[in-house]
């Protein structure tokens, strides 16, 4: 019988191998690689272009955040819905989630719909101004 910790042993081994390999590569590159610095090489770069000028603390419209939030909410709803839909009905000896699953998801979706109605009426989806 393995204790819960012992079952993590293979993961630990994998972790060690990964860290060791990465460390080895960095170390080898440092030891063996040629080093010829120049002005161009030392400047900071950003995806091949000059770094953006000005303050990085720019303000975005608050609507972007709200949309991002709404996206996450419905994205996660989809994540819940997909396995639920697969497991709802019985098949091949598996009993299925049954009415309990149906009612639970009904409550979940109803709550989300209420939330959607709220933000809709609140004017969050209104992009006019």
């Amino acid at each position, binding site marked *: 019988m393995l204790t*819960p910790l012992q079952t993590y042993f293979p993961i630990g081994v994998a972790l060690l191998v990964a860290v060791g390999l990465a460390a080895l590569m960095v170390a080898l590159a440092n030891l063996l690689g040629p080093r010829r610095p120049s002005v161009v090489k030392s400047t900071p770069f950003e995806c091949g272009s000059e770094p953006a000028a000005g303050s990085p603390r720019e303000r975005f419209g608050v609507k972007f955040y709200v949309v991002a939030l709404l996206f996450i909410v419905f994205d996660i709803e989809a994540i819940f819905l997909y396995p639920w839909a697969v497991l709802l009905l019985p098949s091949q000896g598996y*009993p*299925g989630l*049954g*009415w*309990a699953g149906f*009612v639970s998801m009904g409550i979940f979706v109803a709550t989300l719909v209420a939330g959607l109605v*709220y933000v809709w*009426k609140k004017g969050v989806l209104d992009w006019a101004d």
Partner: protein
Amino acid sequence: MNGFPTNDFVALLPIAILTVGALAVLLSEVFLVSGRRGYQAAITVVFAVAAGAAAIARPYSGYVFNRQAVVDDFSAFVTVVVCAGLALSALVGAGWLRARNAERGEFYGLALFGTAGMALLGMATDLLVAFIAIEVMSLATYSLAAYLRRGKRPSEAAFKYLVLGAISSALFLYGSALLYGASGSTLFGELAKGRGSPLSLAGLSLVAAGIAFKIAAVPFHAWTPDVYEGAPTPVTAFMAAGVKAAAFALLARIFLSAEAGTAAQATAFSGVISGLAVLTMIFGNLLAVPQRSVKRMLAYSSVAHAGYLLVGVLSASVAGVREKALAGLLFYLAVYAATAIGAFTVVGALERRSRLDDEPADAWDLERFAGLARRRPGLAFAMAVFLLSLAGIPPTAGFIGKLYIFQAAIGAQLYGLAILGVLTSAMGIYYYLRVVVYMYMRPAAGEAEPLSSAATSVALAAAVAVVVVLGLVADPVIRLAQAAGAILL
């Protein structure tokens, strides 16, 4: 096709009622657009009362959701306390927000959601359920703290609360992971399996640290004064009453599952809780002494009271007095909820208002209480009752609560903690009485009339009634608390 798990759904009835109430208030906010929003507080009170009634009626008792949650007297008591706290805070909020032209459905909706989380926390017997409940509760209170978003202080308070709350959630979650590693389960009932192992102790300590943030125990209290002072006053009242009660319910359940039941077998976890209690009682009281802002003083007082409650939790680990200690804890929580809401209500009625929701630094200064006994004798009397109760002077309910907790502590032979407890509460006399001095013994500073509204008056009267009646005829409530203290686990 397996059977329909009716019990699981019935058990959640109070939480369902609160959630439906929250949705109802939110939808009313967008559909019933009119200048007057007095009905929203009324809806909130109705749903809070209904949820409390559902918790008392309790159509089903016992474990639900595969032993991840439980409906028992303990959870019912906690639910009733947090629902009562919600109802009182909603009434207080109605008058306070109207005076600032900030009464919106979101306030009540968030409070209802938060209360649902608190009620669930009282039922949780599984680390994951507890975590979900904590998050539901906390997200609502973070937003409530920022409710007056135009002001600097509320924003600062909300931001601090959010950041430190996130840390506490992380600690709780990490501790849960370690506990799972030690015992192979997230159920409280299985925690004892890993007893004695360093992993379990580390896990329990991290979980306790996470909860210590919520109950504002020293050294995890740093956010409390700023958040309590900066948050809108009705929200502060709600946090002091509800969050504390729910978090203590959780701590009691976890602590009791982890402990064996006799002082001799006490694990190092007891030492952790005992250290927290000592620090909290000493520093909570010491730091309250120099405060001139009454709101900040009450925040530190809330820290100090967490210390006394921790003594109650610790006493509960001793088999002979477990029931007494738990009952004392619950009674104390109920009394503290009423008292704190009442005291913050008076503070809210007196605070200096500005157009930008940005309270000036002296908004809650002691000077604002000067001569209150002449200007508004009723308000001053109510505040005096709350302060005497917080100080634990008979014949208020606060005295019975302290008597109860210290009785349990002495029964558990925690003499040192009991002596420290009474001595620090004597220290508390100084800063509580200072407010009484200003109200009764100093001439009025000639300030504007304090805020007054019917809803606030009802809330204050109810809080005074609770504090006085529980001080004089505590027996019925103590019996309920005792029944609730005999939890299964």
